[in-house]
């Protein structure tokens, strides 16, 4: 989840622009065949926020947002991590309670669509879902503040099916520094290291998106299983603290981890970052608040995206194309290696570039990578196999540590 109001994203405005982008018809037969026979895993989607109004349903095609069952099918998205997210400032039992209700919301959506969705907690279950022609639904908790500094809560989340936890969101929590807050813990505290060890034991992937560079290195040192960055891009191309330096990506790769490229325009494009000034952010925020209640995150996400595209049309913000995603993937592959890059869209939680408005556009990534000369095997790795490998490895470490079940 990128808070639109803080970082302001991008995209375009409207149909006129859209006509210029690649359509599904431009996907080659080879790319189509490859894409739809691969397990495409997206490690970060904030669609959960939309569930909370009690009306949104993943079943029918929605006119807004990026994710629903018809569009996941159309885009060949085979496995999706639904993010459990509340703002960093909400802490204590309130945070736990709200996280639980979001986990419930995901599980209810899965229960409501047994023909299309299957809750998965292991790589094998993801593959089994694919075999049954279903989309694997997984869960990640985006921010360590939601465990209320309590390993019991962490274990309860694991028992409820959560398979990764991002150690912080945009603010520090009680035991880890965030990349977008003032450092107070010098990375991970001792308790924070215990959290990482317990995650290893439980078979939860340690997610280092959002955390400070020092927290990242503390994780690398502490974790017995490969971590991943569920939704972060490359700092060498776009200098955002939420992105990873080349050195960090190399070090992550050395531990077997994966950087999952985030499609948020503010993380993809340096010019966009420059133009998305605090003034623009403020203006955007005011516009959004006209349409949404203060705590209606789902509404804010959808309206934020719509208004951002208006700003692009008005020339207040630059237009960023989906090809920027490909640039980041290529850069990360060059730096970290083909086994260490994946997809973490941030759909429904960030501002998407033009041409990647929703899950239906995903085959374009496959098409673009083939055009760049990637082998089919390499494309499959990026689409999902790298993530499944990390999951398998995390599960193995968990068993060794006499974990979980």
């Amino acid at each position, binding site marked *: 989840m990128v808070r639109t109001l803080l970082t302001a994203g991008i995209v375009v405005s409207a149909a006129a622009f859209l006509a210029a982008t690649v359509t599904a018809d431009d996907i080659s037969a080879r790319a189509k065949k490859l894409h739809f026979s691969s397990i495409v895993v997206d490690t970060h989607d904030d669609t959960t926020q939309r569930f909370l109004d009690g009306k949104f349903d993943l079943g029918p095609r929605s006119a807004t947002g990026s994710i629903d069952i018809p569009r996941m099918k159309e885009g060949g998205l085979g496995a999706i991590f639904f993010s459990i997210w509340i703002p960093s400032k909400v802490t*204590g*039992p*309130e945070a*736990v*309670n709200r996280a*639980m*209700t979001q*986990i*419930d*919301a995901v*599980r*209810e959506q899965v*229960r409501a669509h047994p023909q299309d969705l299957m809750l998965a907690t292991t790589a094998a279950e993801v593959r089994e879902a694919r075999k049954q022609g279903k989309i694997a639904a997984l869960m990640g908790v985006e921010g360590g503040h939601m465990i*209320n500094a*309590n390993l*019991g*809560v962490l*274990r*309860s989340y694991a*028992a*409820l099916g959560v398979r990764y936890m991002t150690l912080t969101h945009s603010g520090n929590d009680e035991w880890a520094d965030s990349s977008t807050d003032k450092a107070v813990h010098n990375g991970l505290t001792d308790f924070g290291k215990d959290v990482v060890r317990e995650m290893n034991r439980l078979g939860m992937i340690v997610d280092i998106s959002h955390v400070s560079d020092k927290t990242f290195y503390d994780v690398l040192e502490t974790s017995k299983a490969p971590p991943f960055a569920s939704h972060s891009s490359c700092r060498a191309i776009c200098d955002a603290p939420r992105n990873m330096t080349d050195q960090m990506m190399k070090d992550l790769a050395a531990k077997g981890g994966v950087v999952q490229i985030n499609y948020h325009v503010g993380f993809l494009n340096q010019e966009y970052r420059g133009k998305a000034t605090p003034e623009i952010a403020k203006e955007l925020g005011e516009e959004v608040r006209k349409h949404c209640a203060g705590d209606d995150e789902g509404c804010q996400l959808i309206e934020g995206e719509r208004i951002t595209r208006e700003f692009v049309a008005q020339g207040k913000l630059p237009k960023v194309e989906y090809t920027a995603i490909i640039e980041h993937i290529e850069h990360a592959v060059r730096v970290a290696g083909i086994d260490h890059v994946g997809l973490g869209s941030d759909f429904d939680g960030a501002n998407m570039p033009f041409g990647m408005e929703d899950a239906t556009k995903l085959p374009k990534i496959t098409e673009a990578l083939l055009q760049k000369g990637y082998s089919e095997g390499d494309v499959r790795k990026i689409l999902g196999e790298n993530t499944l490998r990390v999951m398998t490895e995390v599960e193995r470490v968990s068993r060794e540590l006499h974990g979980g079940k």
Partner: protein
Amino acid sequence: MTRFRRCFAACLCLCGVLVAGSRLSAPARADDITERAKKLHFSSIVLDTHDDTTQRFFSKGYDIAKRNPDGHVDIPRMIDGGMNAIFFSIWIDGRIMGPPAVQKALDQIDAVHENVRKNSRDMVLCRTAAEVREAHKQGKIAALIGVEGGHMIGNDIRVLRMFGDLGVRYMTLSHFYNDEWADSSTDKPVHNGLTDFGKDIVREMNRQGIMVDISHVSDKTFYDALEVSKAPLIASHSSCRALCNHVRDMSDDMIKALAAKGGVIQINYERSFIDQAYKDASDKLTGGVVAQFDLFKKECGDDQECFGRKMAEKQKQAMEEGKLPHVSWERIIDHIDHAVKLVGAEHVGLGSDFDGADMPEGMEDCSKLPKITEALMRKGYTDEDIRKILGGNTLRVMEQTEKVSRELQAQ
């Protein structure tokens, strides 16, 4: 006829044994019935639907794997007593509400999970009747979870579902105090039983396969739950009002209505719920169970160990001073027998309240449970009926609850 004669003989015999036991402290003579009872008991699934041992998980001195000098339940004593299936109760003070209640309940659910995991050679977490039977086959103790009080869901049906997903297999609709949507038997009614939301909770419990527990609730809440629920209910730890007139117990009419819907009353061993003289004396002494609770709450806060210690000290002293009468474990048998005579052996079970209540003499901990089997046998109960009371009835309710859940989820 046979039954009557056997009972007559058994009662005489048992009295003799008790008298001898108290005078000479000689063990009971290992006659035929004793041997048969032992064999029956240790080959049965003995399922106790209410144990507050969870509270002990939070005190440093306690280890469920070891024989403890105090309290009522640990693995060695469970093995001694043939108690091979246990509902660990999740309980916090009924006045804690909202997110803090949810958090505390989660801590306790986790503590059960962790204790089971750390003792996985002896125990396994179970969610279904089939899993309990499988655990028994493997020679392991089946650990189950019940939430004792609707206040712990923070007035949020989604939290109820999460508890279900974490393995909670029953919820008592209230504890000592009314919650947001159900009246308690020991509080002033404000909802006239179940509110509309309370009825939704019951329906959701049906859908999730979580048993509806009507111990602790007001009579009106009981009848409301009975009307709404599509699955049979249990009273996880309540005894018979006809023998001991306590609001926490069930009237004969209630027991009949519960049975008519296929439910089970799980007899509670608490002294003041099974013995009228004790209850009367205890009320006089402390003003009743809730007042007593509050008294120690003031002294001990949330320290449950302190709670138990203070309570025991005070009671011991009162007994020595003759202010509280002695209560024999045989009152448990009286309550079982009363309920069986009223509604049949299919609707009675065991809900000790071990580690959460004051046990009668002779039932000091779970190692004493075989005495129940022997006493029922001496009363002339058939082996089949005894097995039902020991656990079969509860497993039947679990199976029916699971079936209703499957049907509702398929809709």
